[in-house]
Each structure stands twice: as C-alpha cells, then as structure tokens.
C-alpha cells in the first residue's frame, strides 16, 4: 500500500520549499531522492541525507514489522516538516517512511534536507529524525530468528531526550 505523495509545493505559499512525504511499503531509491532535491536548482549548496536501516541485533533478528496509523502518519510528519521549514532556510525536504515487513539491512526511513548552507541542512535533518522517532505514529515489532515470541520494541528514553533538545 502506498500513500499518494503530497503535492511538491504548498499552493499559495510564497517561497515554501518543495516537500515530499511518502509512507510506503516499497523500498526507496536514495540516489534519486537526493538528486530530486538538487535538480535544476543551482542555488542549493548542501544536501544532507539520513537513512535509517534495520539492524540485525547480533544476528538474532529475522525481520522487523512496522505498523502505522494511516492518515495520521502523513499528517504528523507534515506538521514536523512544517516546524523544520519555519526554523531553517530550507530549499527542499523529503521524508519517506516504510511500513510492513523489513529484513535486516533493509531501509526503514529516509530524510533528505537541502539548503544553501550546510548548518541548516544538518540541523533540520537531525531535528526531523528526532521528532519522527517520538511523534510519528509507527510501531516496530521484532520477529526473532529462533522463532520465539515476537516482541514490540520499547520506546527509548534517549529518543525523548533527543527531541527535547530542540
């Protein structure tokens, strides 16, 4: 299941950077997502990408299963992106979050931020990730290789602390 990507610019907003948000089961292509933000825009000086991957937890993990709240996931990520756009001079933002079953080494989430200046691109990327972790309605369940009972991942207090920095 793929949500329709949001429109690439907010209608009526002057100088609002293009924003692309997608919640999808399929994998994403990091290169084309980075290229999209640079494309035809020679005023972009810095592009930062963050890719979150499924770790194998010391070889014990068979797969992660990501549940999400359709509709709210897109809405909440949009709100987080708008906060970032209000705080930093960005020339583009892309957020892609996968759901469903993901094997170790597979992509989970991609955040790409573009700006004329590197400080803004780095800060906005880290801000987006901190708030995706604590506010976007996704839940991870671990399937173990040894077939023991699956377990829901517990929220990390360090993630709350990371979000509280901003």
């Amino acid at each position, binding site marked *: 299941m793929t949500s329709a990507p949001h429109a690439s610019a907010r209608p009526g907003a002057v100088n609002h950077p293009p924003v692309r948000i997608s919640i999808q089961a399929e994998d994403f292509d990091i290169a084309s997502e980075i290229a999209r933000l640079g494309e035809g825009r020679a005023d972009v000086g810095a592009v930062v990408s963050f890719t979150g991957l499924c770790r194998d937890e010391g070889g014990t993990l068979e797969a992660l299963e990501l*549940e999400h709240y359709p509709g709210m996931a897109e809405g909440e990520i949009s709100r987080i992106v708008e906060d970032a756009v209000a705080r930093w001079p960005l020339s583009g933002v892309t957020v892609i979050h996968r759901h469903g079953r993901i094997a170790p080494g597979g992509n989970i989430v991609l955040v790409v931020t573009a700006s004329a200046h590197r400080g803004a691109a780095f800060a906005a990327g880290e801000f987006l990730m901190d708030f995706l972790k604590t506010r976007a309605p996704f839940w*991870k*369940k671990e399937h173990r290789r040894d077939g023991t009972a699956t377990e829901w991942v517990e929220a990390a207090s360090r993630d709350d602390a990371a979000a509280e920095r901003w």
Partner: protein
Amino acid sequence: MKVLYFAWVRERVGTAEEDLDLPETVSTPAELIGWLKTRGPEFESAFERPEIIRVALDQVHVEQDAPLGNPREIALFPPMTGG
C-alpha cells in the same frame, strides 16, 4: 464514536477499531481509558499502565487531560517507535 487501537494495545484489546457510545461522564481521554478498563480483562490488560498510553483526536496528538470534544475518531496507542 470510532475508537482505534494500534500495536500492542490493539493486540491486547483484540480489535483494531470499534464504534462506541460513550457515557456522558467521559469528557477526557484519561476518563475514556478509565471507562474502557471496566469493559473486560482484555481492556484491563491493554490499559494496565494507563499513564503511558498516547492519544490522538482526529489524527492529532493530545494530552490525556485534553477535552475530548466530538471527534470523528479517537486513537489509543503505545509510545511510538518509528524512525
């Protein structure tokens, strides 16, 4: 009112979604959780630590003591672990 459950809250409750007529006395998410717990052992289990439950009204996060109002849907779920 449409009530949605996600992740282990959904698993313990045993359903993803139900339509409920709430009693007049329920005016906040916290009160809703308290009332749900009286509906059986599966709800007792899902909400055994009510303070960690997160709430969204019409797909927007709210605190448990926010006014419930008259949303199209209310969702109850564990702390999020995406990203």
